[in-house]
């Protein structure tokens, strides 16, 4: 029998495999960054792990030859508005589905959930025609409106509100509070973790959204990062340093968000899987 202090070979192997795998997973990110600081990286120049004449030239190209400052502002603005709108529409709907009984509520909730199953692709043509009719093609509003309500967000917040003890509402009601006050002063403060999860997910999905912004935002000065990035690839087919600099710019904010909100992101994903 060996003592519990001894490191078992199996544990060592496990660590080595997990860490090697993590390094392999991380490598594409590192390579993106290294390429972005290697001037002229492309068909003739292959970046080295330690670039000899590292420079931020490629980033300069992004902000001088291409409207990347504007593109970043677009992405941030659209993501903020989408997030605020989804927090508002999800919280109000979730409150109704949890606390305001009415005839046919189950059916209405089922219809809401069904919208989660409808792929965006099915909606592309009619949405495009609809926004064209409203004169909203190539406008921020056109990109935003279809993202205002999210069945996922409503579902997430309803689960959270269902767990807020009803005694809390009832006590407030006895004090003369109506539904609006119960919602704002009792329910919302009690579902902060779920609101945080939704904030992160809404921001992330807006930041990374591709198909709809691609269809609706045509002028370069309105585009968001993923669209500008795809365009960059078409324009600088051999200048990989510029394309990779664009990737770094699009990845960094998500990386920051992820580091600060890892708990909420992982919880959000994990809880979606346990049924």
């Amino acid at each position, binding site marked *: 029998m060996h003592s519990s202090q001894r490191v078992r070979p199996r544990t060592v192997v496990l660590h080595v495999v997990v860490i090697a795998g993590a390094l392999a997973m991380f490598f594409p990110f590192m390579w993106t960054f290294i390429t972005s600081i290697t001037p002229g990286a492309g068909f003739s120049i292959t970046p080295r792990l330690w670039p000899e004449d590292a420079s931020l030239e490629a980033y300069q190209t992004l902000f001088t030859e291409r409207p990347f400052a504007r593109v970043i502002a677009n992405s941030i603005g659209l993501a903020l508005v989408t997030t605020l709108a989804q927090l508002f529409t999800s919280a109000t709907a979730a409150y109704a589905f949890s606390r305001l009984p009415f005839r046919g509520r189950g059916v209405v909730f089922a219809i809401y959930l069904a919208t989660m199953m409808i792929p965006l692709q099915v*909606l*592309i043509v009619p949405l495009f025609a609809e926004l064209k009719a409203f004169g909203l093609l190539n406008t921020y509003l056109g990109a935003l409106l279809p993202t205002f309500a999210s069945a996922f967000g409503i579902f997430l917040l309803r689960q959270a509100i269902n767990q807020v003890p009803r005694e809390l509402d009832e006590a407030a009601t006895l004090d003369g509070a109506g539904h609006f006050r119960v919602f704002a002063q009792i329910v919302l403060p009690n579902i902060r973790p779920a609101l945080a999860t939704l904030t992160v997910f809404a921001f992330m999905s807006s930041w990374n959204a591709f198909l709809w912004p691609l269809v609706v935002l045509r002028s370069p000065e309105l585009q968001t990062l993923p669209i500008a990035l795809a365009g960059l*690839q078409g324009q600088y087919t051999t200048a990989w340093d510029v394309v990779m600099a664009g990737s770094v710019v699009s990845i960094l904010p998500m990386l920051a968000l992820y580091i600060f909100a890892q708990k909420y992101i992982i919880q959000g994903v994990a809880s979606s899987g346990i049924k």
Partner: protein
Amino acid sequence: MVLPTAVATPPSRTPARSGRNARRPRATIGYVLTVLAFLLPSAVPLALFVLGPMIAAAWISFTEWNLITPMEFIGLANYQELLADERTGEVFLHTIQYIAGYLPLVYVGGLALALALNRALKGRSLWRGIYFLPVVTSWIAVAIVWRWLLNPNNGVVNLALGWFGIDGPGWWTDPDWAMISIILASAWKDLGFVMVILLAGLQSINPELYDAAKVDGAGAWSRLRNVTIPMLSPSTFFVVVISLINGFQVFDQVYAMTGGGPGGSTQVVVQQIYDLTFRYGAAGEASALSWLLFIVILGVTVIQIIGQKRWVHYA
């Protein structure tokens, strides 16, 4: 009953019926207005931008339309044309090829990682964090990086293969390898997502089951087969359902890595919908294809929900 999540208990069924009815307030005008005030902010956008377009898509699929000139009603002609066109079979075949490569890769990889990270491991949350990192990255950035890694000329992967004397393939420039390139990039991106779902599933397994299996003399492999895999089946089911839904809708990475090429070898269903609409001005046919895709996804999902009784064990 303490369950890890509220989803497990259907909320509306357990309370006494009478209590539920008694609690429903009388439908005074004030109450109706309150309900509307809470519901309309979400109901209006969902009706205008999801349900309405959904119905409109069905209508458009019965017309000939190029998005500009007036629609012309042509009945089922778009569907007939799609079913007769061999490209329709091809785009579905390519989509299924994608799923067939992607799903096993991401599931087996995710399971192995989840099992490894479910143990006492130094720096566990850091490793978990790194494996999950690609999930928060945009598809376009991922697709572009992989195009660069798999660049046939001087991409890192072919350079590394060269060290071992292997002449790397043309990856996304070669019709035989383009779909494999997309599958590799996709599996890399989603591995962490599957891992986190399965890890949550593993952590909800009752440890007493393992103790009981050990008492019965079950080895590690037998415990994996007879305890872990069956107890993990709800999480596996979720991963399979979600992966198939997303798999049939695969688009971003295809658009950015190959645009459907080379030689149409990675033309998937959604890329075809996009091209029909915005390249060939065939919005009617695109809508018909969208509906076909939706019906296929719905059918596959319903079959899985019916079939789950045979293999999914809810504790």
